């Protein structure tokens, strides 16, 4: 690649990223407005939730004033917005702590779980996806198809509950809830994460492998694949050297969606394995009406989704010579 080429590549990518970041900010603004609006429809507020059902109206009014909840909603939103623009997500109404502290405590947990689940599921998904695409319509394909279908066919909570009953309660191999000790050894680490990662991976592998299969099959129908076969290219080389580089676009896109699910959709796994992640934090923020915390969680999920999609698009563009020079 010539230097000029490379320069134009980066300029193209740079322009794309600037544009996408701008759009992402618009989306984030929209999300925050949506969250603020619908959370305004929720019954009760943080003051009521903190004080419980025995509280007197005077007590609630006092706390409401202290929390600043007695001011009009648009004012509160504007203030929140002004703060977030400065990079300060504010103070939790309930926990008496900066939201940033609370998030920084939970975010690594969610990232770890998502990262591990990704590490486990992606290779399996590729293996299954490729194997069934190559054997399209044959017995192996059908068997893998049924297997992946069965994997998505059961509700996640049932899979998790069965796994706990078998591996934790009956066999006592694995802990039933995920508690990672401080400074864990590798074995402790694996034991702690084995089940939640497994349960998350089941769904992701099934979905992702089906997407990979579809993406590969789409490519297999293209003329260059026939040409490669007529050159004498063998199946493995065909898949890895010829097909995958062209299927990267849809595959990374599917991966981005799966990963964003791992990030924000792990609420059931977090509940069953009692894992202190962001999803359950957000649920908590909803139930305690802790608006700054709720907004912060929503922003993170939205940003993560947009970031993943941006990364996927960037990879897709870099992998496609035609697009990356446009």
């Amino acid at each position: 690649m010539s230097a000029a080429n490379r320069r134009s590549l980066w300029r193209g990518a740079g322009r794309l990223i600037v544009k996408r970041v701008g759009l992402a900010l618009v989306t984030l603004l929209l999300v925050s407005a949506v969250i603020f609006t619908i959370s305004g429809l929720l019954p009760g507020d943080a003051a009521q939730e903190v004080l419980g059902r025995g509280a007197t109206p005077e007590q609630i009014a006092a706390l409401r004033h202290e929390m600043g909840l007695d001011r009009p909603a648009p004012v509160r939103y504007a203030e929140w917005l002004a703060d977030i623009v400065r990079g300060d997500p504010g103070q939790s109404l309930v926990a008496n702590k900066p939201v940033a502290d609370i998030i920084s405590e939970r975010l690594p947990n969610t990232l770890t779980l998502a990262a591990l689940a990704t590490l486990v599921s992606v290779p399996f998904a590729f293996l299954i996806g490729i194997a069934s695409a190559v054997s399209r319509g044959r017995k192996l394909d059908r068997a893998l198809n049924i297997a992946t279908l069965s994997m998505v066919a059961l509700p996640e909570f049932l899979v998790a509950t069965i796994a706990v009953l078998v591996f934790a309660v009956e066999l006592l191999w694995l802990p039933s809830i995920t508690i990672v000790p401080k400074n864990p050894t590798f074995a402790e680490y694996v034991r702690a994460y084995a089940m939640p990662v497994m349960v998350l991976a089941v769904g992701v592998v099934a979905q992702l492998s089906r997407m990979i299969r579809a993406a590969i099959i789409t490519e297999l129908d293209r003329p260059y694949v026939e040409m490669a076969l007529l050159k004498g290219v063998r199946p493995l080389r065909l898949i890895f050297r010829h097909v995958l580089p062209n299927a990267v676009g849809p595959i990374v896109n599917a991966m981005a969606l799966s990963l964003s699910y791992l990030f924000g959709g792990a609420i059931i796994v977090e509940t069953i394995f009692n894992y202190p992640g962001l999803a359950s934090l957000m649920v908590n923020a909803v139930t305690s009406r802790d608006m700054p915390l709720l907004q912060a969680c929503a922003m993170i999920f939205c940003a993560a989704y947009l970031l993943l999609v941006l990364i996927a698009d960037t990879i897709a563009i870099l992998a496609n010579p035609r697009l990356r020079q446009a």
Partner: protein
Amino acid sequence: MVDLISTHVSRRTLLGGLAAGLVVNGVGIGTALGQPRVGGRIRVASTSASMADTLDPAKGGTATDYIRHYMLYSGLTQFDGRLRGRPGLAERIETQDNIVWNIRLRRGVHFHNGKPLTVDDVIFSLMRHRDPAAGSMVKAVADQFASAKRTGPLDLQLRLNGPNPDLPAILAVSHFLIVENGRRDFGRANGTGPYSCSEFSPGIRTIVRRNPNYWKPGRPYLEEIELIAIPDEISRVNALLSGDVQMVNAVGPSSVKRVRATSTHSIMEIPSGLFTDLIMRRDNPVTANPDFVLAMKYLQDRELIKRALFRGFATIANDHPISPVDPNFNPDIPQRPFDPDRAKFLLKRSGLLGVRLPVYAAPAANASIDMGSVLQEHAARIGLKLAVNRMPSDGYWATHWMKHPMTFGNNNQRPTTDMMFSLFFQSKALSNESGWNNPRFDRLLLEARNTTDAVLRKQIYGEMQWIVHQYGGLAIPAFISLLDGYDRRLKGLFPIPLGGFMGYNFAEYAWWDA
């Protein structure tokens, strides 16, 4: 006639109450009589955790909070197995008139940071609840503290606004645990409790370490306790059975069989005054109709509820809130039977058989959804159409509870009979669930407070139970037993009916036998 019944009742109640107390204590002592040993590290799981978790006893709102606070702080008094206030940091609590109370503190008690306990700490800890800014959950209770003054190096005098013979029990409640004088920031805990805090992450975990300078010599026994919360019942029981936690509360009745089937774990059943009630509001013409209310009470299939919903881990209740656990329980009120025909007759008489009413229930009110289903089913059979609206727990108390003609409520065991009645049945009470107004009941409540004679008070309470049973707007089908699951190696446990985990106070008593 009313008088006749209540006097007749009172003696037997007294005897029954004493006998029950003996049994309870007997079990407690028996278990504790093994050889308690110091050491062991356990993890226990309660039901709820949130960002609102706090180290401030005044703000405690969940079982997890209460447990945490009892581990870290001590109160002037402590509950025993019969919910009586026993001396704690207070060596003596004395009164002549139930209004002025003289309290003498124990000598040589120190906070975790080494500061000795003083009268000022106690005065601060009691009086701070009255300040609205403190956000205390028991402000309403603390409002009866008129003043507190220091009367000696270890003595103080607490004056109430009116008589209250139950003060020793009230002071045992976790919210009144003693904190340092002037402490407002509860980012860290400094108490006189059996354990000191080594880690606290709201919504995640609390880790406490044995306080070697605890004022009860030899106690506590456990070296370290990690308190977490597992809101999902199945997960909680699974965590117990897989050995990830050693004790849990709120085991579901249907999980008991599973736990008991193991050789390693067991269940402690704690009969308590916890109940879920169907509330019929007086401000709606239908639910204010006495015939309708009575019909609903007759439609309670108490046997089925006890058997199917609670697998027998419940006591059939009689539409009043005082359970047999309570020393003031009146056993002489005839049990109201399940009688659909009677209900149908009453409904017909009132002309309300055709009404269509929604019943609001939520998982937040223990078993209320299933109770609603049972009621709905039986109502349908006599031609009454009820719709059960299942609400999410979130927001239920603020939005639905007591806000519709028929909702389900749920009430914990209260430390005293007076508290139960004054919080939920007095006509002016904030949580007067049915919104009823019974002048005689209100008058009796004050009379009981003014009475120093325990026997007489019990008589009065007995009559009040009858009034609620007969005229109250609540259907209370059953008292729900609390079920704690524990590892059999965990010893020293006995039930305190206030709540699970030995009335949230297990940490002081439990020891690890391994």
